[in-house]
């Protein structure tokens, strides 16, 4: 029976002709647009996550604590909410780091009468604290330490990146939704034409007492097929676009965002895109069927 219904649906698609092709093209366009924004948003999300991992807050200390007090100070800071890890950087280590940074100019540091660099604590915020609000509270807590001279560090720009990511995802969703509605209406139009072309079959089916699901299934199936076809084409376009553009964009992305490689959509997202397209087409077919119910 399913083979017969599928055959009827394919016959209907041939009847719908150009309108069915337009519907498939619109579904392809809407899902490709949605998928493109999704892809950019996914990669921005990875960049945000990576940069959140790299966020450090430096607590400059008034004076270098005695070696016996370092462990307890580090332990006290680690116990604070929103702190993932703490590392003590002594004055000596800070000077060594400066020398390493200066490279061939390191002898300038040797001419200093004394080590001017303060000891510090390098604090890595926990993921929950790596937001504007979380970081602000952590900065307040660290600034309140009696040993703290000054606290430096901010997550504002990471937050801005995250905001861009959310904005892109929203724009993508908006454009995708508008195109999806257009695609759905085109499928509805195609199915309405099919419904007209199919009226003799429908009449015969009803007269001989065919179950209602048999009368309706070909319309729903041809909508689902248009949707799946559009989704597969959108996926092919996305894969092709990714393979063409990713190698060209990666050096720039690495330089600006520190992402060495652009990733394609993960498998669950690809599956979601295919399912969304299929359901979109099915909904179009179902809506047309509902309007023309005798």
């Amino acid at each position: 029976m399913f083979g017969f219904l599928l055959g009827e649906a394919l016959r209907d698609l041939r009847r719908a002709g150009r309108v069915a092709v337009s519907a498939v093209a619109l579904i392809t366009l809407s899902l490709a647009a949605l998928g493109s924004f999704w892809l950019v948003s996914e990669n921005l999300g990875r960049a945000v996550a990576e940069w959140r991992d790299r966020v450090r807050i430096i607590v400059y200390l008034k004076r270098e604590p005695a070696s016996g007090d370092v462990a307890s100070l580090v332990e006290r800071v680690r116990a604070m909410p929103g702190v993932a890890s703490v590392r003590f950087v002594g004055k000596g280590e800070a000077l060594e780091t400066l020398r390493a940074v200066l490279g061939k100019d390191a002898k300038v540091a040797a001419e200093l009468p004394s080590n001017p660099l303060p000891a510090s604590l390098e604090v890595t915020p926990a993921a929950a604290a790596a937001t504007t609000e979380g970081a602000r509270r952590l900065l307040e807590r660290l600034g309140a330490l009696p040993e703290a001279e000054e606290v430096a560090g901010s997550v504002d720009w990471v937050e801005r990146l995250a905001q861009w990511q959310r904005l892109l995802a929203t724009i993508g969703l908006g454009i995708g939704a508008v195109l999806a509605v257009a695609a759905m209406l085109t499928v509805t139009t195609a199915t309405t034409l099919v419904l007209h072309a199919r009226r003799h079959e429908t009449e015969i089916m009803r007269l001989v007492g065919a179950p209602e699901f048999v009368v309706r299934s070909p319309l729903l199936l041809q909508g689902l097929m248009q949707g799946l076809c559009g989704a597969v084409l959108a996926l092919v376009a996305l894969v092709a676009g990714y393979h063409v553009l990713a190698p060209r964009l990666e050096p720039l992305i690495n330089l600006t965002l520190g992402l060495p490689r652009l990733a394609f959509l993960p498998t669950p997202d690809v599956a979601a895109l295919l399912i969304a397209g299929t359901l979109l087409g099915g909904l179009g077919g179902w809506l047309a069927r509902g309007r023309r119910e005798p």
Partner: protein
Amino acid sequence: MVELHRVCKVYAVGAVKVPALSDVSFRVAKGEIVLVTGASGAGKTTLLRLLYRDELPTEGEVEVLGRAVTTLHGSQVAALRRSIGIVFQDAKLLPGRTVYENIAFVLRVLGAPRRDITQRVFEALRTVGLSSRARAYPAQLSQGEAQRVALARAIVRKPALLLADEPTGNLDDAMAAEIVDVIKDIWAGGTTVVLATHQARLVEGLRRRTLTLEGGRLVKDEG
């Protein structure tokens, strides 16, 4: 098999009420062949549409194959129609399908096993004398042949009741006689037949029980 009790049918056209049937009562026994005759607009088609539940009566009771059709809903209507074969003046063949496919179509939509379909289609085609035209398309058939295919499609499910609404209305006398012969064969096979026609010659030729409608009223039940 079929029973109508004080049936009235009124169509509402805007504010205007158009009576199609008035106080019609009769019974058709199992295995009987009954002609329904009357001038155009007498109510023959409305009467048949009530029998396959395409219309509901405004008043009265309609019972077909032991079911009160006014109380049927959705799948019950479909179940009733699976026991009824219907033929119209227009053969209503699907133009893009061959004779074989047109008949097989009804078996396929009803979920008949694939292995039975060919056998049953050719059996129906033999009954109407068209086995050799299985591969022809409707456009390649004469009107008489098309009507015989419609009959084959109606009987392929071996219905208990055959309703024929002016099946010879578009045919010349020779073709009409062929169709009547086929219908008589179907009836002889045990199927109850209700045949609506306005052709007096056909009624005289058949010499069977005849219900005569005039202006929606049953004025004669004889034979």
